[in-house]
C-alpha cells in the first residue's frame, strides 16, 4: 500500500503502550473466564450430597464380627475385635512397616486413630476396606495360625488376593509387602453407643 506507517517513535510508543495495557487486562479477563469452566469440574452438589456421612447401627455386632457399610462408593469395615485379638496386636509390631501410624500422618488416620488399636473405642476397628497398593478389597483372615500365603505366626488380619499384601487386625500393613501404607481410617464419630457416623467427625 502506498499509505504507510509514519516511522516516528511516537507512533510506535503509543502502540506499544496500548498493546501492553490491553494484553495485561485481556490476560486477567482470560483467566477470569477460564475459572468457571475449570470449576465446573469440581464435585457437584449432587456428588457432595451422595458423599455425605453415613450412619451405621453397630448394636448387633458381636465380638469377632465385621460389618461393611458403603461411604463415597467405598467399603468401610466396622469390626468388633475380641479381647484376645486386641491383646495379640502388639505381637505384630516388629513385623509391621508402620506400627505407630507415623507415615503420612494426616492422610491415613485422623489424630484420634493414631494409637495402639487405631480406633476411638478399642474394640471397634473402623477402616476403609481398600488395599493401599492398587485398590483391591482384602479378604478376611481372622483365624490365627499357619495358612497358605500367611506366616506361621499369623495372629489374624486381612489378606489382599491381588498381590498378597497382608494387614493385621488394626489395619496395619506388614513389612515387605506391595502395599506401602496402613489401611485408611475414615473420619468418624460415635453419635451414641450404637450409632456410628462415618464420613464426619464433628458431632451434629
Amino acid at each position: 500500500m502506498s499509505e504507510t506507517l509514519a516511522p516516528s517513535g511516537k507512533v510506535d510508543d503509543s502502540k506499544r503502550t496500548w498493546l501492553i495495557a490491553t494484553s495485561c487486562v485481556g490476560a486477567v479477563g482470560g483467566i477470569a473466564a477460564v475459572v468457571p469452566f475449570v470449576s465446573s469440574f469440581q464435585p457437584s452438589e449432587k456428588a457432595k450430597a451422595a458423599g455425605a456421612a453415613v450412619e451405621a447401627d453397630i448394636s448387633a455386632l458381636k465380638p469377632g464380627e465385621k460389618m461393611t457399610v458403603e461411604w463415597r462408593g467405598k467399603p468401610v469395615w466396622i469390626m468388633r475385635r475380641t479381647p484376645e485379638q486386641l491383646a495379640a496386636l502388639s505381637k505384630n509390631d516388629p513385623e509391621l512397616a508402620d506400627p505407630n501410624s507415623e507415615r503420612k500422618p494426616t492422610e491415613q488416620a485422623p489424630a484420634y486413630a493414631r494409637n495402639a488399636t487405631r480406633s476411638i473405642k478399642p474394640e471397634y476397628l473402623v477402616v476403609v476396606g481398600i488395599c493401599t497398593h492398587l485398590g483391591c478389597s482384602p479378604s478376611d483372615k481372622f483365624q490365627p495360625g499357619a495358612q497358605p500365603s500367611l506366616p506361621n505366626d499369623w495372629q489374624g488380619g486381612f489378606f489382599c488376593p491381588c498381590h498378597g499384601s497382608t494387614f493385621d487386625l488394626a489395619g496395619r500393613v506388614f513389612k515387605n509387602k506391595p502395599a506401602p501404607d496402613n489401611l485408611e481410617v475414615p473420619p468418624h464419630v460415635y453419635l451414641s453407643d450404637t450409632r456410628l457416623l462415618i464420613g464426619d467427625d464433628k458431632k451434629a
Partner: protein
Amino acid sequence: MKTMGFTQKIILGLLLALGLAATAQANVGGPAWDKAPNKTNDMGALQNGAKVFVNYCLNCHSAAFMRYNRLTDIGLTEQQIKDNLLVTNTKIGDTMTAAIDPQQAKAWFGVNPPDLTVIARSRAGAGGSGADYLYTYMRSFYKDETKPTGWNNLVFPNVAMPHVLWQLQGERRPIYEELKEHDAVVHVFKGWEQLRPGSMTAQQYDQTIGDLVSYLQWMGEPVQNTRVRVGVWVLLFLGVFSVLTWRLNAAYWKDIK
C-alpha cells in the same frame, strides 16, 4: 453512508414498534394479573415463604431439583433447616420431594400435582411475570360447592387443586355484575364477598402470599441475585477493556490515510 443511516433508522423504528406491540397485548381470557411484590432480596420474606412452602405445598407438590441445603443462601443455617424444615428421614443434602405418592395423587386429583421447582419461570406470559401469575392465582380461590374439592379459582377455572391455605384466607365468593353489551349479557367480576373469615386479615394473607411467591421466584433460579452481582463486575471490566481496545485500535489506524 446516508443510505445505511436510512435503513438503520427504519429497522430501529420497526423494532421499537414491535416492542410496543408485543407488550401492549392484552391478556386474552381470564382476569388481569396483579403485580406480585418482588421480595427476592428480602431474606426475611424468603425465609417465611420457604416455611409456608414446606408446610403447605410439599405435602402434594415436589420441588425435585431444589436441595434443602441451598436454603443457606437465604440466610438460614443448616441447623435451622434441620430443625424447622426437614421431615424425618431426609438429609440436608436431599432434594425436596413431596410426601404424597404420585400414583395416589393422580387417583385423588385426576392429575399429578406438577413439580414446583421452576413454576415461577414457566408461568410468565403476556399478562405479566410468572410471579404475577402465581400471586394472583393463590389469591383467587373461592368456595364452589359444585366442584369435587369444594373450591374453584378465577385464574385457573376448574383447577384440581383445593384451596390449601383456606384456613388463613377464609372462605370467599366472587361477586359478578350483569352488564348488557351489544345485546349480550356479560358477567363482569366486581369483587369478593367474605363468607367466613380466616386466621389472617386480607392484608396479612396478601403479604404471606407475597412471601411465598417471592420464595417460588427465588427457588426457580437460586443463583439469580449472585448472577446480577457478578454481572455488574463483568460489565465494568469489559467497559474498561473496551476503552483500552478502542485506544489500541486508534493507535494503529491513525497511520492509515
